C-alpha cells in the first residue's frame, strides 16, 4: 500500500472543499449554506494540519485554531442575522433575501 502523503490529505481536503462550494452554490436554504461554509473551513483545516505534520511545525495547528475561532464568530453573527431575518420575513430562503431593507 502506498504510504499516506500530504497529497492524499490535499485531495481529501480539495474534495471536501468542493462539496462545500457546491452546497453554497446549489442550496437555497441559508442555514445549509452556512453549514457548507463550515465544511470548506474544515477542508482548509485538514490541509493545515496535514502540512503541519509533514513539516513538523505546530504553526499549522495554531492557524487551525484561529480558523475555528473565526468559524465560531461567523456562526454566531450569521445565525443571529438569520434569526433576525426570519422574524421579519419568516423564511430562510436565500433567494428571498434580496433587499437590504424592509
Amino acid at each position, binding site marked *: 500500500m502506498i504510504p499516506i502523503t500530504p497529497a492524499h490529505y490535499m485531495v481529501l481536503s480539495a474534495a471536501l472543499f468542493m462539496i462545500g462550494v457546491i452546497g453554497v452554490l446549489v442550496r437555497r436554504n441559508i442555514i445549509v449554506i452556512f453549514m457548507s461554509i463550515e465544511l470548506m473551513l474544515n477542508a482548509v483545516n485538514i490541509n493545515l494540519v496535514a502540512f503541519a505534520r509533514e513539516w513538523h511545525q505546530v504553526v499549522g495547528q495554531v492557524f487551525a485554531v484561529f480558523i475555528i475561532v473565526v468559524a465560531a464568530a461567523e456562526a454566531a453573527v450569521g445565525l443571529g442575522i438569520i434569526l433576525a431575518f*426570519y*422574524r421579519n420575513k*419568516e*423564511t430562510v430562503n436565500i433567494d*428571498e433575501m434580496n433587499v437590504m431593507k424592509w
Partner: protein
Amino acid sequence: MANAPRPMFDTETLVINMGPQHPSTHGVLRVVLRLDGERVVDCDVVIGYLHRGIEKLSENRDYTQIVLLTDRMDYVAAATNNLGYCETVEKLMGLEVPRRAKYIRTILAELQRIASHNVWLGTHAMDIGAVTVFLYNIRERELILDLFEEYCGARLTYNSMRVGGLPLDIPAGWDRKVREFCRIQEEKLVDYELLLTHNRIWLERTRNVGVISGPDAIAIGLSGPPLRGSGVARDVRKDEPYAAYDELEFDVPVGATGDTYDRYLVRLEEFRQSIRIIRQALDGLPEGPIVGKVPRLIKPPAGETYHAIESPKGELGYFIASDGKSTSPYRFRVRPPSFCNLQALRQLVRGHLVADVVALIGSIDVVLGEVDR
C-alpha cells in the same frame, strides 16, 4: 412564498395544554397556556372534567342522604363539607345543636383542616421539587385519618355529621390520642419549616411569585388562606362564628405582600392555630347529648338561606331552598371555595414562567372534586 399568501402565524407564542392529565394540576384541571418562550402571556382555565352534578343529585335525595354526597366534593376535607351542610339545614329549620356536638364538630373540622393543609403543603412542595416534604406530610395526615377511622370508621369520606348533631359520640380515649397527635404535628411542623421556610431555593421560588393585592384579591373573590395571604384578615370563623368558634381563642394570620410565600406562611400558621383550637376544645369539651331535637322527617319550611363556613380552602357556602313540601331540597347550591379561588389563577400567572404556574396552582390549593362538583 409559493404564490399563495402566507398566513401570518405568530412565531412568538406557543400554546401548550397543561392537563387534564398532568402531574401537578392536582386532578383533572386543564390550563391552556399561551407562552412566549417560557413566559406565560395568557391562560385559560378549563374545568368540568370531574363534574358529577352533585347539586342536581342532591335535589333528588333527601336531606340525610345529602351528607354523604358532600363528602365527595372536597374529598380531602370531607368533614368540613359535612359541617357546612348540616349547619345550613339547621339554620333553615331553626334547630338548636347541643354544645357538646358543636365542640366535637369543631374538633373534627380543625383536624380536617390540618389534614387538608398537610395534603396542600405536601403537594405544593412536591410541585416545587421538594418530594420529601410530601411524604412527611402524608405521614402526619395518616395519623389524622386513623383518628377519623376510630371516630366514624371511614378514612376519606366520613359522613361524620348529621343534621342536628352527630351520629356518634367520640370513643373512649380518643381525646388523648388527639392530644398526642397535636404534639406530634407540632414537632413535625418544625421539620417542614427546616426544610422549606428558610431554604434559599424555596424563597426564590415563592417570593414575589403571583403577587395579588388585598383589594384585588377581594374583587376576584379569593377567600381563605389566599385572601389572608394578601393581608385581608377575613376568616368566617372569626367574622361570622359558627360551631363553637365563638367560645374558642385563636388568631387569624395574615400575610404582607400577597405572594406565594405569604400564602405558605399563612397556612403554616394555621396549622398551629388549628392545634390551639383543638386543644382548647378538648379542654372545654362539655358533657351532654350529641343530637338536638330533630324531627324524624327532615322537612324544612319553605324558604331559602345561605350559610358559609371556613373550609381549609376558603369560604364554603351552601345555599339551600326548600319548597316546604318535600324531604329533599328544592335547590341545593354549593359555593365551592376552590372554584372561586381558581378563578384568580389567570390573573396570578400572567407574566410568570411555566414553573411558576405549577407553584401557583399549588398555592391556591384547589381540589378538583370541589371545583367541578
